[in-house]
């Protein structure tokens, strides 16, 4: 299991690195999906099979496809790719990247907790379902309103 976890972790990090450095949007999207799949594996190793499934279905399946649609609609060609290349000069990315280092160091320092090993239990779909329609029922209702807001907003904005 731990091999699976660390292997997927490395894949996720590398794929994500590629996402943020690609110049071609479609390539980047594909790498992103790779990253999402790797994370789904990690979810599984962590005992969250339901989340892993959702990660693939909703994230990789729905949201990324939405991106893909938009990219296709805009018909971005070679021009934008060259443009991206021109924009991604070291002078642009070095600053934020260097800034990210201390931030990462600080966070790593902070999460470097007690080293005790913790047991992982599998929390499957049923518990989630029970929780969703038990204590979290309001959250579900509210999430529907959130989606409604997104829907109405997107409907209005995306109109020609």
């Amino acid at each position, binding site marked *: 299991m731990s091999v699976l976890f660390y292997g997927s972790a490395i894949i996720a990090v590398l794929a994500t690195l590629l996402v943020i450095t690609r110049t071609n949007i479609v390539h980047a999207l594909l790498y992103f999906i790779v990253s999402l799949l790797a994370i789904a594996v990690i979810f599984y190793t962590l005992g969250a099979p339901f989340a892993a499934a959702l990660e693939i279905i909703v994230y990789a399946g729905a949201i990324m496809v939405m991106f893909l649609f938009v990219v296709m609609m805009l018909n971005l060609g070679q021009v934008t790719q060259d443009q991206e290349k021109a924009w991604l000069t070291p002078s642009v990315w070095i600053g934020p990247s260097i800034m990210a280092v201390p931030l990462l160091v600080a966070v790593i320092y902070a999460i470097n907790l007690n080293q005790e090993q913790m047991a992982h239990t599998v929390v499957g779909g049923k518990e989630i379902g029970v929780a969703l329609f038990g204590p979290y029922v309001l*959250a579900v209702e*509210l999430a529907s309103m959130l989606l409604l807001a997104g829907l109405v907003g997107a409907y*209005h904005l995306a109109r020609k």
Partner: protein
Amino acid sequence: MYSNLIIDLMQIIMLTISTVVVMMTTAFKRDHGLISGLTVFGLFASLLTFVFIQPVLPLEATQLLIIDEYSLFFSNLIIVGAIGVALLAYPYFQNHNVQNEEFYILLMTATLGAVVLACSNHFVSFLLGMEMMGVSLYAMIAYPVHAAKSAKFPLEAGVKYLILSALTSGITLFGIALVYAYIGTMGFDEIPAALEAAGELGPVFLIGVLMIVAGAAFKLSLVPFHIWTPDVYEGAPVPVTAFLATVSKAAMLAVTLRLLLVSNAIELNVVTTVLTVMAAASIIFGNLLALLQENVKRLFAYSSIAHLGYLLVIIIAAAKIPGTLSVEGVSFYMLAYFVMSLSGFAVISALSNSEKEYDQLADFRGLFWRNSWVSAVLITVLLSLAGIPLTAGFIGKFYIFTTGVESELWFLLTMLIIGSAIGLYYYLRLIYIMLQPAEDDTNDPAAVSLPLGVHAVMAAMTAAIIYLGVYPAPMIDTLQSLASAF
């Protein structure tokens, strides 16, 4: 018990129902007046439900929401703000040549989000409320993006707000995740117990809390997370700016204060230090930035940075003074600021529409002699913002001073005085411009006749400013009782 829960959630339920009704009506009949009327009616109906809610307080509606006097106060405030925004939006969008009805749906969802945020007692509802408000606002800010001739820069403002807000949402969420990882619970009121169980305070918890604070600071536009404020304020349609300045801030403030107090995070040294730095910086930078600002909307944006800095002083004071004074003070100041902002934006809105906004300082020249009523409202607002007696702003400032003195925050009080001194300049500058005779009357935004709604908003808010300034005792009593929740 169960029926109590229904009554408790009545406001939220009413809002949801109204949203659905408005949406359904829109689907069948697009009529700006009708929809706007329905919205206002729905909002009024949800506001009035507090009469039923009040007797059964307080109650936890599942672990997610808590309805007590405190949250009810802020919910009411939020709904009042939403009513105001709806009333302002009607004349503003009247000439807008593309569909306006969705705006009211978004307004309703945003309001709902704000109410949820104000009532939330759990990170899940916190997230949902914040994002419901946020997502609706993205669209509301960019609302006139289709118009052939839009008054401002809705697209620019919308994109800026979306990107930056999403960025800080991510930060907040990550912070919540860290906190959750450390203590294993997401209910606000369970945090102290969980912390105790976890033993010593881990840095991961602190960083998590700070990240949440950063997220809240973004919504409250506190330095250094203030930078979006002027652009978004300016670029958004005036009613939306009013919403941002009032409802969005009130909701976020309500939940932040609850979180800080209930979780005892306010007593953490790090948190008070960070808040102190943010308060001082907000007060000074906000006022400095506003100093020579020529655009009134941006001016209000910068001044809101400063005012939230002032407010933070009271919150910080909560760390040192026992009792309820601090909550009372925050609520009062927020109330005052709410009323002042709404009133101020009502004036700008009264002069503007979706095709042309009169938001340059020069547009206000001679307003006092052209339309003394509108200008008197604005003068009252500005004086109140400057903290002059007879206005709500003064009692608010009085609370800051009182709490500041009691908790001996001399540094912040010094900053407050310096900041207020700078602040006087730009408030007076605007007043002065209004008092001067106009150079020419051809470009006269005040000539437009205004619908009753805008007058009503201005009149009600001005009356509130004066009333709270002259006779604050009843409101203070109310706030005192709601503060006893903590």
